[in-house]
């Protein structure tokens, strides 16, 4: 098994892991982390596609690699915006939840109704 295939399989597994975290972890910050893992899995798939496109004396196809660089920057801005939003939400409500209507309640309500 070549390093590229291995990286591709790793990418596939990372996508699965990231998706699971994004679906099931209730804390928004953990969702953001899972989103980043999911994203890096996708980038790895771009990576193996680039590697398989090695030709004309290049070790890899530069186009997907450039796309990954763009993608990493975009993912970072997304993370930054999401984290800032989350911090602001926490500042206002002392809570961090995505479930509907929850932030409308008083901070000390505690139990969900």
């Amino acid at each position, binding site marked *: 098994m070549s390093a590229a295939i291995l990286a591709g399989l790793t990418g596939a597994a990372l996508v699965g892991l990231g*998706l699971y975290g994004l*679906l*099931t972890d*209730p804390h928004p910050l953990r969702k953001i982390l899972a989103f980043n893992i999911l994203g890096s899995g996708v980038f790895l798939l771009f990576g193996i596609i680039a590697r398989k496109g090695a030709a004309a004396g290049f070790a890899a196809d530069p186009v997907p690699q450039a796309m990954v660089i763009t993608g990493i920057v975009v993912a970072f801005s997304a993370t930054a915006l999401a984290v800032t939003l989350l911090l602001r939400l926490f500042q206002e409500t002392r809570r961090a939840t995505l*479930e*509907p209507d929850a932030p409308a309640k008083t901070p000390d309500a505690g139990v969900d109704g």
Partner: protein
Amino acid sequence: MSGTGTLGTALLVATLAVPLALLLACLSRRLRNNMPALLVLAPLPGLAAALLALGGMPLAFDQPQLGISLALDVPGALLLGVAALLWSVTGAYAFTDLRGKTNAARFSVCWLLTLTGSLGVFIVADLLGFYLFFALASLPAYGLIVHDDDDPAARRAGGVYMAFTVLSEAFLLLGFVLLAAGESHGSLQIRDVVAALPQSPWRDAALVFTVAGFALKIGTVPAHGWMPLTYAAAPIPAASVLSGAGVKAGVIGLIRFLPFDTAMPGAGEMLVVLGFFSAFYGVAIGITQANPKTVLAYSSVSQMGVIAAVLGMGLAAGDHSVALDTAFYAATHVLAKGALFLAVGVTAVTAARRLRPTLLLAAVLALGLGGLPLTGGALAKLAVKAPLGDGVVGLLANLSAVATTLLMLHFLQCLARTAAHEQQAPAGLAVPWQAMALASVAVPWLLYPFAGGNVADALALAALFDALWPVLIGAALALALRRWQNRLPPIPAGDIVEPAERAFSASYAVGSAMERADGWLRQWPAAGLSLLAIAVVLGAATLFGS
């Protein structure tokens, strides 16, 4: 284009343009507040166009670029003329009636919108235009019905009316889509789509949905529930134009869209059965009612049933002449029903001792609906005699005349009870009523020849007798009814509406179940799972679907 042709076209366009121009004028607050005074003028171009068309001039206006296609034939002209007359005279009535009332401006706007639609359906020649004017004749009438915002009965009636109207629009839309789909050249002219209907692969469905849409409008049982509620709740002028002119949008619809050139016995007979059922059902419930407006509404249910039956006979036989016959029948109904509602209004502000002339005139019109000889009603019955034939159907028609007489005598009795104590109706109300009453006596005689009738035949002794006996039997029954009146079960106005409303409320449970489901689906894990599932299923569908 000849000079008169240009005039005809101009009048056709003006029929719609004048009320629309008045509507535009309503943008100005000052003009809006004075609009009730102008209502009488709005329908006059329509009246003129109708007279010109009856004079033998075929009127047409075709602008495919603008998507407008107007045409006026004799059945359309008959109905347009009397409807315009009613709108105009009742407009005068409304001017006095509205004086000092709070919602006059809103009433005027809704009046003009409804008027535009109500006259438009008689002259429009293309499918989409018809749909537009039909909607215009129906939806803004809400503002006419719910004139008094604080009247819960009016609000309920308005709600019920809207429910039926929107349902009717939905059926018609589907029906029209099917009609258009059946026309292979892409023409949207009514005559083209109707001509193509018998060969259309969607013939039955198109017919069912189109007829259902119009049946809702003319209050065919079981779609009649809105009529009694609405007419009872609406102010007098509104009830008058809606029952007289508004409902005829459904009649002209049936006339225009039923494919009479091809005999369709099954469909026609179904319409006959439905029609006569409505005709007798309306009377049966009507005689249990005490409010004269409600009684008139049930009479409309009954009369529209007769029209549906006549059209059904024509469809079954492939007889195109019923179009003209029913148009004339409907035209007399426009005049009589419109006038009778005005009578209800005038009676309510007239002292009992001054009531006699009003009652007398009302009696002539009311019994005319039952076919009293020498009235417009008698002419109408004569006009539809031929298509109904002499068999069972003819007998049913005569029995329905008996029943109508019975109902109308009941109406007169209810009407007399509503007289005021010490008052004289103001001239602004009395004169329009009298004018309308006279028109409904005289105009049918003027129109009868245009409907292919012969006045001399109508005056023949046999014809007079034919018309008289149902009235006499009806009168005898009415006497009997007086004795048994208080044994009749109390039936709420709109009879089936209440159970329907209860059933509707029960459907709220579905709504709350959907709300709970939505709440669950909108939770993050559920939505996320849905997203992934959709991705996987779509991927599989792409791979294995083709």
